[in-house]
């Protein structure tokens, strides 16, 4: 891995994003619009709004970054640019971390905007500070990036790539404790939910919601999410083959 190549790759991906205005708008505005929708849905149930909006601040970046990354990486694989990059001094890790960094940066901007609007405009309130909320949102976005990179290896068309979103995201959203508290689930469902990374990021967000200072559970949960990111990136690296049939 090389510092200049990593920086150049990150810059290149961000420049591609910048030329794609609709996607930039999607990244920045969609969470805000959906949060506003949730605000009006629970206009007379303040507690529910606080809970749902907080969880959504973690889920939106995951979904959006998963989608964007899997399509972007698929294009890289299908357009011949990946094959070409592999004849240059670019390393696999330069590429993977380049994507992670570029979209992680985009996710940070997204997290700041969405969290800012949620707290200052929509009146979201948590016991802990919003800095932790943003940190967890960014970790979730990077989780989406790493899983998107991995899943893109199993899709041959963009059409197939988007099918991975419901497959990867829906079970995690259903079982993360948003709809039914995890301790009230059937044992086997809770078992499944225990191995899904989004469960831990949602739990971390709930910790920030309930405690003024970062708790041990929050740090442990964040650690688990980062661990999954590392594993997904390693698996993603294994799917990147310099030599192909």
């Amino acid at each position, binding site marked *: 891995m090389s510092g200049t190549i990593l920086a150049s790759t990150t810059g*290149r991906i961000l420049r591609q994003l910048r030329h794609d205005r609709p996607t930039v708008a999607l990244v920045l505005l969609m969470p805000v619009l959906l949060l506003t929708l949730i605000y009006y849905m629970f206009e007379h149930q303040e507690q529910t709004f606080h809970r749902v909006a907080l969880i959504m601040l973690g889920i939106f970046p995951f979904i959006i970054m998963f989608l964007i990354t899997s399509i972007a990486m698929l294009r890289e694989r299908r357009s011949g640019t990946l094959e070409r990059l*592999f*004849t240059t001094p670019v390393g696999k890790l330069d590429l993977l971390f380049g994507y992670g960094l570029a979209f992680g940066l985009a996710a940070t901007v997204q997290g700041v905007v969405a969290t800012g609007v949620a707290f200052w405009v929509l009146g979201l309130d948590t016991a802990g500070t919003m800095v932790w909320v943003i940190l967890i949102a960014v970790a979730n976005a990077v989780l989406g990036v790493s899983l998107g990179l991995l899943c893109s290896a199993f899709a041959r068309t963009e059409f197939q790539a988007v099918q991975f979103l419901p497959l990867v995201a829906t079970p995690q959203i259903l079982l993360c404790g948003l709809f039914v508290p995890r301790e009230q689930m059937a044992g086997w469902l809770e078992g499944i939910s225990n191995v899904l990374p989004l469960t831990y990021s949602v739990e971390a967000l709930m910790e920030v919601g309930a405690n003024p200072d970062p708790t041990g559970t929050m740090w442990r949960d964040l650690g688990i999410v980062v661990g999954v990111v590392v594993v997904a990136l390693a698996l993603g690296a294994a799917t990147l083959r310099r030599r192909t049939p």
Partner: protein
Amino acid sequence: MEAAITITGLTVDRGKKEVLHEISTEVDRGVITGLLGPSGSGKTTLMRAIVGVQLVKAGSVTVLGRPAGSASLRQSVGYLTQSPSIYQDLTVWENVRHFASLYGLGDEEAEQTISDVGLGEQSGQLARDLSGGQSSRASLACALVGRPEVLILDEPTVGQDPVLRDDLWRRFRKFADEGVTLMVSSHVMDEANRCDRLLLIRDGRIIADDTPAAVKEAAGTNDLDQAFLTLVRERDEGEAA
């Protein structure tokens, strides 16, 4: 001096089919080799093997004394894929600048290369807004910008107007004079006359490997198209007999 490219017994499968059958050849430094043959004959596969992105079944490919695809070689080998492989959502400048940076080069080299391929005026245009010919020249610029010692170009002049094509060939000749080794695939036989040496490929086998003049002489004609046909027919008859 050792050869720039040495290929020994190269055999490649794609899918269940063997597409290259024990190919062996050597290419000297500073030489332009034309790779000719019909579509599906194995030209692209051979080029992919030389740049080290092709899984090979048997045999070896050595470039500048090192195994094809080794990390230290990637600094010195430039590859142009057949269909333009550039980022559609970046400008010409951003594309070339990115590839320059991968070789530790900067703005100056990028700008020079863009003007070398005649895209100076399109520098700020997004790749997706370019014409087919412009797109492939942008792609060519990305292969040239790293100042490679070995250039593998898969149909670099397709869709270019004759003046530009002539211009590009002059440039290739200049590179060769400076010691760069070029392998250029083409469908256009009049381009073959501009090479120092021709490799004619058919069905994954080399059927001729000589200078353009010698190839024509062997076939007893002054026309390369005709020479190619004659060689193919002779071979087919030889196999049938």
